[in-house]
């Protein structure tokens, strides 16, 4: 029988199917961070049980961590407590813990792929919704709640009904200045934040085939923002090249055996999806959001839609624009901004810093802008130095911070002040997400760079050195 990529991976991990109930799904790899795990470990303690497979479990510190002076004790008491709890829990259960200062430390969804924890065909979960990132490698990866974290720690399984399948296909070549982030924001703006709820998405077509692994991660990362459980892309040579030789990927004969399996991981030609959606690459422009959910995005040259032109309740829409202090019909281009945040599990990878640097090179940071540039991991930070990007950033008046989730969810000191506008490469523009009262405009690293040097919302294409054929 013809199967989708999702079917192949899911079905091979079902320990047991419960009639009119969920599947018991075996989890290959479990990523743990400090915020959603302490109560789960407490549950294990109360049941007097140990982590069943510590060798399938990996712990890191990222959500709470400061982005400056990481060599000093963490000042915030509650954050320090959570970090200490994770360190102690990891030790008690023999789980590798990559705390602050560790060479492998960084945002959980950046370090998973970096260290080869993320491989094709695997099931990967983490108590964080952006676990969908790992689907870029052809894995089934999704976010879970703390009860489920406890479930996976204690039994290495999760109980969930199988999601429906949705294929999103985009063919053609992307326009100049259009990045993977724009592709994702474009799809979410078309589907809305609930459009893919109940589905697992497979991204197919030329656009994704041509995308780098970093780009695929950005797209899969944002799957959750259209309500999907996760997103995935069939592995190909690019995927195999990326993971080969990384610490936790198979070696030698095991690699060869794994490769044989991984090469079967694609949707069969006759596979039937519950839903199919198709776009063409040339309809996509550099995007920016104007509202308080990731679905409220437009091509950067467009005006803010009127309430009657968008799906959803009128009252909700008006509340959103009121929060942002924007009006229907206004242009986004030229709007003054206060902060720029480059980072997060969406856009904190080396390629994002390269894109940012390509715009700011030879220019200066605008005086009215505070810029927080936060690499996704130590390895990304190293690459920024090695490739000379740090020099470009510094010459343009920017500084680099230390890795972590930072202003994406503002659990540390990096909070956008109330009423201020931030062009952010992160994933959510919810009310107060980047700090109480903060106003977030989601965009690509190119759009963020253009805003950082002009001090206002700017089309990055105006600043790009357009290549002539």
């Amino acid at each position: 029988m013809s199967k989708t990529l999702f079917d192949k991976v899911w079905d091979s991990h079902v320990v047991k199917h419960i009639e009119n109930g969920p599947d018991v799904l075996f989890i290959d790899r479990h990523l743990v961070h400090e915020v959603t795990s302490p109560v789960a470990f407490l549950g294990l303690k109360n049941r007097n049980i140990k982590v069943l497979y510590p060798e399938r479990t990996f712990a890191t510190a990222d959500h709470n961590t400061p982005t400056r002076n990481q060599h000093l004790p963490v000042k915030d008491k509650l954050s320090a407590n959570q970090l200490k709890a994770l360190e102690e829990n990891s030790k008690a259960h023999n789980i590798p813990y990559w705390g602050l200062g560790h060479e492998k430390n960084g945002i959980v969804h950046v370090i998973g792929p970096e260290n080869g924890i993320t491989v094709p065909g695997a099931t990967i979960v983490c108590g964080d919704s952006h676990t969908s990132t790992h689907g870029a490698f052809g894995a089934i990866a999704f976010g879970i709640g703390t009860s489920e974290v406890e479930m996976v720690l204690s039994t290495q399984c999760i109980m969930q009904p199988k999601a429906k399948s949705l294929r999103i296909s985009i063919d053609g070549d992307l326009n100049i200045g259009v990045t993977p982030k724009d592709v994702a924001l474009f799809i979410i703006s078309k589907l809305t934040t609930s459009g893919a709820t109940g589905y697992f998405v497979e991204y197919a077509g030329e656009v994704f085939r041509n995308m780098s692994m970093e780009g695929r991660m950005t797209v899969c990362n944002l799957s959750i923002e259209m309500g999907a459980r996760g997103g995935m892309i069939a592995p190909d040579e690019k995927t195999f090249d990326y993971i080969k030789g990384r610490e936790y990927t198979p070696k030698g004969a095991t690699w060869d055996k794994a490769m044989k399996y991984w090469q079967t991981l694609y949707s069969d030609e006759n596979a039937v999806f519950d839903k199919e959606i198709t776009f063409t690459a040339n309809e996509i422009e550099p995007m920016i959001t104007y509202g308080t959910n990731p679905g409220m995005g437009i091509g950067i040259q467009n005006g803010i839609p009127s309430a009657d032109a968008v799906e959803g309740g009128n009252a909700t829409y008006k509340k959103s624009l009121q929060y942002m202090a924007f009006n229907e019909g206004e242009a986004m281009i030229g709007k003054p901004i206060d902060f720029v945040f480059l980072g997060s599990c969406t856009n904190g990878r080396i390629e994002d810093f390269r894109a940012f640097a390509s715009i700011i090179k030879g220019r200066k940071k605008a005086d009215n802008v505070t810029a927080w540039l936060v690499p996704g991991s130590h390895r990304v930070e190293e690459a920024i130095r090695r490739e000379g990007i740090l020099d470009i950033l510094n010459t343009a008046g920017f500084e680099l911070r230390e890795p972590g989730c930072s202003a994406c969810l503002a659990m540390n000191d990096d909070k956008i002040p109330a009423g201020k506008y931030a062009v952010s490469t992160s994933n959510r523009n919810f009310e107060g997400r980047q700090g109480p009262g903060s106003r977030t405009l989601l965009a690509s690293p190119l759009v963020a760079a253009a805003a950082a040097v002009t001090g206002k919302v700017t089309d990055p294409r105006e600043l790009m050195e357009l290549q002539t054929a």
Partner: protein
Amino acid sequence: MAYDKFNILKSSAVPLPIENVDTDQIIPARFLKATERKGFGDNLFRDWRYNPDNTPKEHFVLNNPIYSGKILVGGKNFGSGSSREHAAWAVYDYGFRCVVSSFFADIFRNNCLNIGVLPVQVSPEFLDKIFKAIEANPNAELEISLPEQTITILETGESEGFAINDYKKENMLNGFDDIDYLLNIKKDIEVFAQDTPL
């Protein structure tokens, strides 16, 4: 952790007719720093409920004494965004046992089911009827029967069925959780793990 059993709930309800209520609103990130599952109800809808100086916002529904009850009625796409179970904990800790909406985000729905809060998904038309009934009478009661899988507006007698899978229904009725079930099939899991290399 086993939780309270759920059977039939009869209660007035608190209306929140806003769409796309994300979990960052239900519990902002800065309140996720606890290492125990305690006291999250105090910060439920923190930034909609309180001014920056911690005085209550008069117009927010949780600050309006005419509304109360164990049922929260929200707009479409309730619980979108972050996977933080703290959002479900806050809903539970505040005293809600059931959330009604015309559409739930997946992870939030799962989280609720895992801690003993029943998510009841109704049609947009029925959701509208509930909001109208509460608007007409803040004390209007809803009856939610898990055994029958029905939700009824008691004043008008209007009723609608809701879906829940048999396994989850059984768990909610008995206060069992998934870990109890999984620990019982641990042998099967261990056999499966042997054949599943890292």
